[in-house]
Each structure stands twice: as structure tokens, then as C-alpha cells.
């Protein structure tokens, strides 16, 4: 899979996700090279978010392997009753290898952070607390040192880093406001800031431009490029917004009904027959 010259941050191999009799993601194989911005696009219900949920540990894929930074992170194969009803391919490929099923927090700890399609900020918390709480995972303290203030410098460091992150994102003036009281575009930006607070190597953005106006979308594209440079990130995003995708992606994968239908550079995708078909439908005269 892929040339070994470029190091892959994320490598997905034969991933199939089947719910009952519905195959949401079918034999998906893709690579996300380091420091690149890669997009996964497809019409509604194509299985993009399901693919994301497989990567982030929300779902355990029915079959397949996901490698992160060259190490297997998720691996599964269909067995028992699931195997009997299995509709995907490569059922036996990973049979002899141990199943790896990390929880979402373990995956985040490895260095994959995500945002959500429908914004999921902690609603009773302020902007500042939202970012600060995301730093909890890497805080070097236990419950006793935290409660009895045994490690004040750690708390201070967390607060300073949070403040620095917020001012970089231009959110510092809202820091004491409730997260949910921000305008939509800023909430998206806050979600990204919160994801960055977990010190990720790979950032997964689930429809970051959903509900944004053209101006905000344009800003978002610059913003994503800036944070990639600044935090030395790899970005993998799902998007509906074609302008944004064509603008920022280095490489694009297109899926429909769970299966890959095309892959290529933005220009190639724009002129790809199958993609146009999937998005616009087939005309009757043909």
C-alpha cells in the first residue's frame, strides 16, 4: 500500500463496518501521509462519519486494520454470528492476528484529536474551561495532588498554555463566556482549539465548514493551513463544501455507499465522471 518514501500518519486497510445487514463502510483503504491535508468526500449517507468513528474508536470496525504512525492501532475480523452474516470482503485476512480495540480516550492519547459534525462543546463551561479541560488528559497529576494543590506549577502551566492557545485562535476576548453563547463560526473554531489542546499529531475534522457562510469558510481554509504549519499537524477532513475541499486538500478520496469510487488530486476529482455522477445523479438521456 502506497510508496514507503512518504511516511503515513494514518493508514486504513480493508476497513469494513457493518451494522446488522447494512454495510456502512465497505473495504475502505486509504493513506493519510504526514503533514498533508487529506479530504474524504461523498454524498449524504456515504459512510464518511462512520469511517471517522472507526478511526476514533467510537465504533469497532467489523473487519480491517488501522495503523497510526506505522503502528497497528485498531484491528478486527468478523467471527461467529457476525461472520455468518458478513457481507464485506477480506473476511479472513486478519483472522490470525490479535484483535486490537482501543477506546476513544486511548486513541486520543496516541495523538488523534477530532471535532464533531454537530458541535459538542461542554455547554456549562466557559470557553477557557473547555480548552483547559481538554488538557486534563496529559496533566501530570493524580487526584490527590490535584485536590490538595500539591502540584500548582502543573495547573499554572495548563492555564498558561490554554491562554496562549486561545489568544492564537483569537478567542481570548471571549474566554469567560459560555461556550454555547459564541457565534457558530467561533464555536467551530473553539472545537478545533479544544482538539489542539490534547497535543495531537493528526487532526480529524468532521465537516468543519457545516453551517458557515462563504466568508467564514474562506477564513477556515486559511486557519486550517496555519494550524497545520504551526503545530506540525496532519489533517484529515470530511467535507461537503466543495470550494473548501478543492481549496485546501492535497489529496482527495471519494466514497459513495460505503465504497471508494475515486481518489486523486483536486483537479482530477473535479473532472471525474463517477464523482459527478454520485453527486448530481445520472441524467435520463444517457
Amino acid at each position, binding site marked *: 500500500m502506497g510508496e514507503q518514501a512518504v511516511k503515513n500518519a494514518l493508514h486504513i486497510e480493508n476497513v469494513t463496518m457493518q451494522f446488522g445487514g447494512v454495510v456502512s463502510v465497505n473495504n475502505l483503504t486509504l493513506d493519510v501521509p504526514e503533514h498533508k491535508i487529506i479530504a474524504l468526500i461523498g454524498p449524504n449517507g456515504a459512510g464518511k462519519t462512520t469511517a471517522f468513528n472507526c478511526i*476514533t474508536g*467510537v465504533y469497532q470496525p467489523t473487519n480491517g486494520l488501522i495503523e497510526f504512525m506505522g503502528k497497528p492501532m485498531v484491528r478486527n475480523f468478523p467471527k461467529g454470528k457476525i461472520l455468518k452474516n458478513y457481507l464485506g470482503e477480506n473476511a479472513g485476512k486478519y483472522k490470525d492476528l490479535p484483535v486490537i480495540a482501543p477506546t476513544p480516550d486511548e486513541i486520543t492519547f496516541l495523538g488523534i*484529536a*477530532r471535532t*464533531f459534525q454537530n458541535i*459538542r462543546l*461542554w455547554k456549562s463551561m466557559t470557553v477557557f474551561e473547555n480548552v483547559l*479541560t481538554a488538557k486534563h488528559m*496529559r496533566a501530570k497529576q493524580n487526584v490527590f495532588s490535584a485536590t490538595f494543590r500539591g502540584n500548582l506549577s502543573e495547573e499554572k502551566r495548563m492555564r498558561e498554555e490554554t491562554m496562549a492557545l486561545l489568544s492564537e485562535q483569537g478567542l481570548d476576548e471571549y474566554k469567560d463566556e459560555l461556550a454555547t453563547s459564541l457565534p457558530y463560526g467561533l464555536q467551530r473554531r473553539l472545537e478545533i482549539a479544544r482538539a489542539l489542546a490534547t497535543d495531537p499529531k493528526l487532526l480529524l475534522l468532521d465537516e468543519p465548514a457545516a453551517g458557515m457562510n462563504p466568508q467564514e469558510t474562506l477564513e477556515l481554509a486559511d486557519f486550517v493551513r496555519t494550524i497545520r504549519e504551526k503545530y506540525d499537524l496532519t489533517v484529515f477532513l470530511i467535507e461537503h463544501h466543495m470550494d473548501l475541499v478543492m481549496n485546501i486538500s492535497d489529496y482527495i478520496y471519494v466514497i459513495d455507499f460505503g465504497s471508494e469510487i475515486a481518489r486523486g488530486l483536486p483537479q482530477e476529482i473535479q473532472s471525474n465522471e463517477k464523482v459527478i455522477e454520485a453527486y448530481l445523479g445520472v441524467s435520463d438521456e444517457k
Partner: protein
Amino acid sequence: MTTTKKNNLPTILVIAGLLIFVIILENIRSVFPFLPQIFDPMSPLFTVLKKAAVYSLVAVSMNLLNGFTGLFSLGQAGFMLLGAYTYAILTVPAELKDQVYYLFGGCAFQFSFVDFFKGIFGATGVPGAISMVLGCLIALILAGCVAGFFAFLIGFPVLRLKSDYLAIATLGFAEILRAIFQWQRLGPITNGANMIKGFPTFSSFNITDGSGRVVLQLSTFVPFLITTVCVVIIVLLINSSYGRAFKSIRDDEIASEAMGIKLFSHKMLSFVISSFFAGVGGGLFAMYVANAQAKAFTSTMTYEILLIVVIGGIGSVSGSIIATFLYVACSEWWLRFLDSEQYIGGFKVPLLRNGFRMVVFSVVIMIIVLFFSKGIMGSREIDLNSLFVKKDKKKGQK
């Protein structure tokens, strides 16, 4: 919130002032005997204060779990029971054990912390007092530990459940515990369905002179002190990184997990800590009623505490404390007059008879729940630092 250097001096002063105020309040009548009956240490005022101090610890511990972590658990009475029995069994003096456990031919467990320390320091005078205080303290901490340990054990199956299912499971756990502790077979340890008594209570902390006359009343101060220490620890926890993680779990579990917060271990942590303090509260409750009996720790007790938490505001420590004092004062004192026949001049007020208090009480509670569903404080807190007029955090007592 963002400044790391916060001046906490006013808060410390207010809390210290409050504690000193309690000591003065319960001793004032021995200095000025002409003061009204209400300042007598036996008056309902002090009963209310003691009970409310105990209950506010349990309410705050329940709020930590239900309000801050969003785990709807109804096992509080069960953990209190564990705490009460642990405290009682560990502190009944050996010479009283045969008398307390006479139905079962003595206790299987002869050890008593109070005796243990008396053996080290001496049994009378100041050393005796130190032994008792130390023994009680260690027994209280162990009471919390036993409750916390049981929480840890049942946490594995129970914390995988969500909302109402969790409530049912924990409620069931509490009821099972109550039944087990009344089991005759366990009589040599739990004294069956009979009460355990004879252990040090709040009034054991009063300082007396040689003839047994009380020199300094401390029986209300002691529960206040222990509760204050525990509540301060809980507040420190809530304001720490872990407290923020708890709140994030309450707000959005999926987001918390995606941000690397280990859901299960944080829920477990909150559950164990909450149960620990419920256990300490149970020990204090045993001291308050001067006995430990499984019969007292019914689900009604859990509901009472849940009601306090709801009235005070889910997610507000100061709300819980204020609500506890109001609730206990109403149920134990202010609404007592409704239970007996009253005459205004020659006119007999209708309806007033035994039990009417509960009717009025229920109506008041219904009104609160219907029209003030956020409770007294909502999720806000009283910031003692920002108070110009130093109002007490526990203002509900007056």
C-alpha cells in the same frame, strides 16, 4: 477563574469565623444564663444545627456524584449505613460490647479504637480525651474507606449503566445492604436488627470538669468542623482538573471521551469519593442519633437527601448546604407547630393535628419543584471571596 493567584484569605476567615460562632452560640447561655431558652444546648436550634451539619455533608457528597458528574445514583443511604456501622463497631468500648450484643452472647469483634488509644495514652483526663478523639477520627475515616471500597466493588457492574438504570441498581444495592445488616446470622457483628450503641457521640466531645459538669460545649462544633473539612476537600476537588473532567462528563460524555478523558475511571473515581464522604456522613449520623441501626437507612433517607440536592440546585455546593439547613429546620423545628392543636384566642385553628406537618411540607416541596425547578442556587455558587458583607455560607441556619 483564569488567575492562578487567587486570594483565598476571606474564604478562610469566613469559615473560621463561622466555626467560632458555633462554639460561642452553644456556650453563650452558660455565660449569660438570662438568655432565652432557645440558646440552651438542649433546644431544637442545636438539634437542627447538628442534624443539618451531618446532612449537608451527605448532600454535598451526593451532589458531587449526581450534580457534578451527572451520575444519577440513589445509593447514598446504603453507603451511610456502611459508614455508620463501621464507625459504631470500631468505637464501642470493649466493656460495653457484651451489654450491647447481649442477644448474641457478645461481639465477635472485640477491638475498639478508643480502647486501643486509651491503652497507649491513658484512659482518664486529657490523655483519655485525646484517645477518644483519635479513635473517633480514625473510625470515621475507616467508615468512609469501607463505604468507598464497597462503591469500588459495585462500581464495576453498576457504572456501566446509564441514568435511570443506574439509579435503580444503586437503590437496590442500598436496600440489599439494609436487609443484610439486619440478618440474624450476622448478629455477632451487626447486632442483627437491634441497634448498636454505647459508642462516643457528639456530646462525648463536650469538655467536662472532674464532677462531670460541662465546662465547654462542643457537641455542635464537632459535626460542623468535620463537615467543613470534608466539604472544603470536595470543593477543592471540584475546582481541580479532575473536577473539570467530572463536569465535562456530565455535559457531554462523547466529547469527553474524544478529548482523552477516561470515562470509566473518572466515573469510578467520582463514585468512590462520593461514597467515601457519604460513609463519613453515615458515621456522623450514628453519632448524632447515638445509635446505629439498619432500619434508619431507608430509601426515604436517600430521597430526603436527593430532595435537598434538588432544592439547593443540582451542581451547586453552597446551594446544597443552604437547602440542608432550611430543610432540616423546617422538618425538625419550624413546622412542628402544625402537628399539635393550636388556639388563637379562643379559636381553635382547624386541620392542625398530628401528621399535618407532612401535608404542608409536601405542598411546599411540590411548589418548589414545580416553580423553582432550578433550586435555590441553580448551578451558581456563593463566592465567599467576593462578599463585601460577610454573610455566612451557611446562612440557612437562622
